[in-house]
């Protein structure tokens, strides 16, 4: 049914940029889910909390470096420092979780690590809630405000920074997976751990690297989230975690390009998709419907296309 769009071009381009922004975060986090699923066939439900811990570590680093007092070019260095601290925190947390909560359950029925993951997730969430008296923390408001435009597109500096750094991180990860010895080992373990071990691959060590790579992405996402939305709290990992998991399922869980694409599809569905639905006569879905849209998408995919919207033959999956 052809529907005339009543809203301005700049509105749609704004919403498109908003979709790319949240989509970037979903995609970065989704990579962790999909890679761990790829090698362990397990959903690491604690990954949302790994993201949250990264965000808090980045916050701590920024505050320690001067917080709101930062100005000038030092800000760039401070953000870089915060990213490094966040990545280290996320990576350490993830490695510890893998060692303590997942590895002892390798070979147990599939439900066991899943439940262990949910337990770790709740534990970390409430640990941080307890430590912060369940109150929100506000990221230092240091990122320069303003925007640049190109035609109908107007994009704020922070959005540009967020999207660009996400894409750069994903490109880097993709290169590691596709072009390096470690990446080959990861793909080999994902396909068949026994055969990979017969090639001399230390499967346990490779799995740890998978957790490290996913956690590094989540740590970066944590800082970007904090700089952009400025409000972080102990429970912040839950919804983005589930959204990122949805993104991973959308793209076909286990597939790395799929998780990236799924993140953007979900981000755009929540913003542009919702507004498009609102263009239909008699439809008025408020902002609070975005989660409904996201999870309706998840359920629809699970029922009709459980291998994801970009389902490929499993033989060409990366």
């Amino acid at each position, binding site marked *: 049914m052809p529907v005339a769009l009543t*809203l*301005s071009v*700049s*509105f749609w381009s*704004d*919403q498109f940029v*908003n979709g790319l*922004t*949240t989509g970037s975060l979903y995609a970065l986090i989704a990579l962790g889910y999909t890679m761990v*699923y790829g090698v362990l*066939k*397990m*959903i690491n439900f604690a990954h949302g909390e790994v993201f949250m811990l990264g965000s808090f570590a980045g916050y701590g680093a920024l505050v320690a470096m001067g917080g*709101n007092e930062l100005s000038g070019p030092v800000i760039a260095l401070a953000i870089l420092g915060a990213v490094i601290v966040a990545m280290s925190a996320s990576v350490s947390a993830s490695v510890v979780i893998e060692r303590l909560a997942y590895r002892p359950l390798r070979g147990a029925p*599939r439900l066991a690590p*899943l439940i262990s993951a949910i337990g770790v997730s709740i534990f970390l969430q409430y640990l941080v809630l307890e430590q912060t*008296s*369940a*109150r*929100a923390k*506000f990221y230092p*408001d240091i990122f320069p*405000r303003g*925007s640049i435009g190109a035609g109908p597109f107007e994009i*704020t500096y*922070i959005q540009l920074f967020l999207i660009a750094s996400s894409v750069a991180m994903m490109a880097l990860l993709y290169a590691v997976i596709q072009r390096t010895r470690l990446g080959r080992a990861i793909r080999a373990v994902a396909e068949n751990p026994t055969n990979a071990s017969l090639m001399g691959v230390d499967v346990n060590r490779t799995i740890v690297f998978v957790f490290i790579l996913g956690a590094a992405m989540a740590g970066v996402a944590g800082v970007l989230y904090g700089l952009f*939305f*400025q*409000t*972080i*709290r102990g*429970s*912040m990992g839950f919804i983005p975690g589930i959204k990122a998991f949805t993104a991973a399922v959308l793209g076909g*869980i286990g597939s790395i390009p799929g998780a990236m694409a799924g993140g953007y599809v979900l981000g755009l569905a*929540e*913003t542009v998709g*919702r*507004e498009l639905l609102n263009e239909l006569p008699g439809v008025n879905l*408020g*902002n*609070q*419907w*975005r*989660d*409904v849209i996201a*999870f*309706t998408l*998840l*359920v629809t995919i*699970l*029922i009709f296309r*459980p291998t994801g919207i970009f389902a490929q033959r499993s033989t060409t999956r990366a």
Partner: protein
Amino acid sequence: MFGRKGRSRFAWLLLAASFAMVLAAACGGDDDDSGSGGDVTYGKAGFKTVEIAAGQPIKIGYSGPLSGDLKGIGEPILKAIELAAKDKTIKGHSIQIVAKDDLCSADGGASAATQLLQEGVVAVVGPICSGAVVAAQPQYEQAGITHVSPSSTAHKPTYPDRGQVFETFLRTTYSDDIQGPAQAKFAIQTLGAKTAYVVYDTDAYGTGLRDAFTKAYEKEGGKVVGSEGFEKKQTDFKAIVTNIKNAKPDLVYFAGFYSEATPFIKQLRAEMKDVKFLAGDGVKNDEFIKGAGADAEGAYLSLPSPVYTGEAYKTFGDLFEKETGIKRDASPFVAEAYDAATVIIRALEKVAQEKDGKLVIDLKKLNEEIRKTELDGASGKIKFDARGENVGGETPVSLFQVKNGAFEQLKQ
């Protein structure tokens, strides 16, 4: 991860869950009745008689947020209640305040009610938040425990969905039915805002305020050009800001709490420096200024409470500041909380009877006595109507603006 069968079962579970969410969202949206007065019929409250053994304290409950983002509201209120009960004895029995953290949520309100009833409280101050009130009302009603909220301003607690009014609920604050129209009048007449964009918390408080404001604003000749809800703890308001930018309203009206208003206004100001911002009592808190910093500057806030000038407020304020070290206007509803506790304690003094060395309290009589109260309280005159609404004073809604990092009261 899932076997074939497991996968489809998982999918169905999610499907069911998302339908439930759709339903919840659909039902939460609109309030049907907004009429005032009308016939008041009560449900059947389970009043009993309680006995308190010699040497035991009389327990009064408190249900409010004592951790989490809204601790900044709940904690000063608790202090005011404790102040009202301090050193008071009724026929030799001291008064003990039993406080339960309800996190300002519906779930928390219901669970705090269960806990307080188990503790054997005879009356309750609270819940603080309207969402928690609505969830807890049936339990208090069934147990016959009268509860007086110092701060729940929503329409729903006094106009429940079930039709029958809750006999055990009263409040010392005012209804949004007063705050909404006052805000609308201020928006049109003082701010000259012809168009408004409404952003609201989807809980009972936010939707109640939204409806009261929208109705009055349109009656005053304003036009609501858009309206969007959000969930508690939401941090991503970008899509809403884009919609506001597109709608170009004169005013952004925010019906919710400071915990969400803080990230919202930061994201709003990043893109729209000049649009006017008006919010209600849930946002008028020092935490808002602390969190939003420079972005809070210029924001308008209203408070559905008297312009505290009475002698009783001065006495209370001095005492409160001396005893707690918290400034009397740092957080809202402390005077109302002091009054709510006072109303309960005075009624207890009249109703409690000594019998065989025990203190006997008839909860029905306690309820009647509280309803009959007429008090020159710290927050103004207090008198309840049949719905439990405070109709004591014709109290204006006060308005404030954030200037140089502080709330400055506006003259009207």
